[in-house]
């Protein structure tokens, strides 16, 4: 699979599989990690080759339904104007899912008082957690996480990492995490993909790829 943007090759000759469970995409910045994640959510399509999800080509899925099932949490928080609760309701409404507000907030490491908070008054770290809660409100089967702790201090990062661990165990949500931090990838994945300059530099069980 490959992708070009503005006359430049961003991803090339990529052929890999990601099993259910916890996976990580690692590599230096500019390697194409975030781009690959966007392709998995169909925010863009590859120029060459094909991506399969549960053995069916991604293009055969209805894009809106696919995005509700395979949720993406972008690196930069981008909440809608309003409260945290209104953002969660919006996402749950799109997916046609009932919203369990307090539980969803708690899963993203936010206490119930955050529901009423105006999103413009949150710190970047709180916004990132609100973005995670918003994605969880859709009850996805797979979560694509783009550097979910990049703007967080150590304590907040630990909260998110613990929350992600619980998602896998309790809700059986598969995760694909993009991280520039190999330590974090080691903590949060069983399977890893390493990208370098848009090409695959390794794919397999964590202990082999992240050794």
């Amino acid at each position: 699979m490959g992708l070009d943007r503005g006359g430049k090759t961003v991803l090339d000759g990529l052929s890999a599989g990601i099993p259910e469970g916890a996976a990580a995409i690692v590599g230096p910045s500019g390697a194409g990690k975030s781009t690959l994640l966007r392709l998995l959510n169909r925010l863009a399509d590859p120029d060459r080759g094909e991506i399969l999800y549960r053995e069916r080509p991604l293009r055969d899925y209805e894009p809106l339904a696919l995005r509700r099932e395979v949720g993406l949490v972008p690196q930069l928080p981008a909440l809608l104007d309003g409260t945290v609760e209104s953002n969660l309701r919006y996402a749950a409404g799109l997916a046609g899912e009932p919203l369990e507000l307090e539980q969803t907030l708690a899963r993203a490491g936010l206490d119930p008082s955050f529901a009423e908070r105006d999103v413009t008054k949150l710190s970047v770290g709180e916004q990132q957690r609100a973005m995670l809660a918003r994605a969880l409100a859709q009850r996805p089967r797979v979560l694509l996480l783009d550097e979910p702790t990049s703007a967080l201090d150590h304590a907040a990062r630990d909260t998110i990492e613990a929350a992600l661990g619980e998602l896998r165990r309790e809700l059986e949500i598969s995760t694909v995490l993009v991280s520039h931090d190999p330590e974090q990838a080691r903590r949060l994945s069983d399977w890893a993909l390493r990208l370098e300059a848009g090409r695959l530099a390794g794919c397999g069980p964590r202990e082999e790829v992240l050794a």
Partner: protein
Amino acid sequence: MTPLAAAATSIHVAVWQVAASLALVALAAAISYWQKADLERDIVVATGRSIVQLTLVGYAIKLIFEADTIWLVLALLAVMVLFGAITARHRASKVPGSFRPLLIALALAGGTTLGLVVALGIFEPTPRYLVPVGGMVIGNAMTASAVALNRLGDEMGDARARIEASLALGATAREAAAPTIRRSLRSGMIALVDSTKTTGLIFFPGTMVGMLLAGASPTDAVRLQLILLYTLLGSVSISALTATLLAYRNFFTPAAQLRET
């Protein structure tokens, strides 16, 4: 009899009177030169163009009035719509494929509002009413849709991350762009809504001034101005809405992905 007919008092303006008013153009050019505003050339060009363009339009309107056929009026309005869309496209340069939405918006706004004022019996379907009113309606529709699409182009760039985050949740293109569409529509309409609020207090609108100068009674001048303001509100809202709702789609692929810009 329509309200306008009573007001059709004719006055005569001699060429020397127009020539005398050029003294004020000279004043404007002098101020620009004195303050180094660097607009003298533009002022001269603008004055020359206004003389040529208005004189030509005056003759064209004279011909159309004399021919007194609705087809010639429709042809003139169609040309106005076409040039309006071409002009507005320059201000909507950040919107891909903006010409078609603008053309449809102006045609729809002109057709609907003129059709309504004729159907409601406010104006007779004759060249004397349709040409000037059509010009105002299409001109205002052009400004409103150009402002709306200009804002749409800016907002779609600025709000890219937020729109894409909504798409990533499975929102349709329309749902993801809804806040942007709302703000673009508002910017297209707000100028006329505001000027309608302050009309008579802060400024005298052109039609009223023209009628008063032409010797019409103030009551007739006011009534006609009100009709025109309300007609323009209708036209502006139709054009801004149509242009925005047609143009936002051009930012998305059929699979609800934001196009690369």
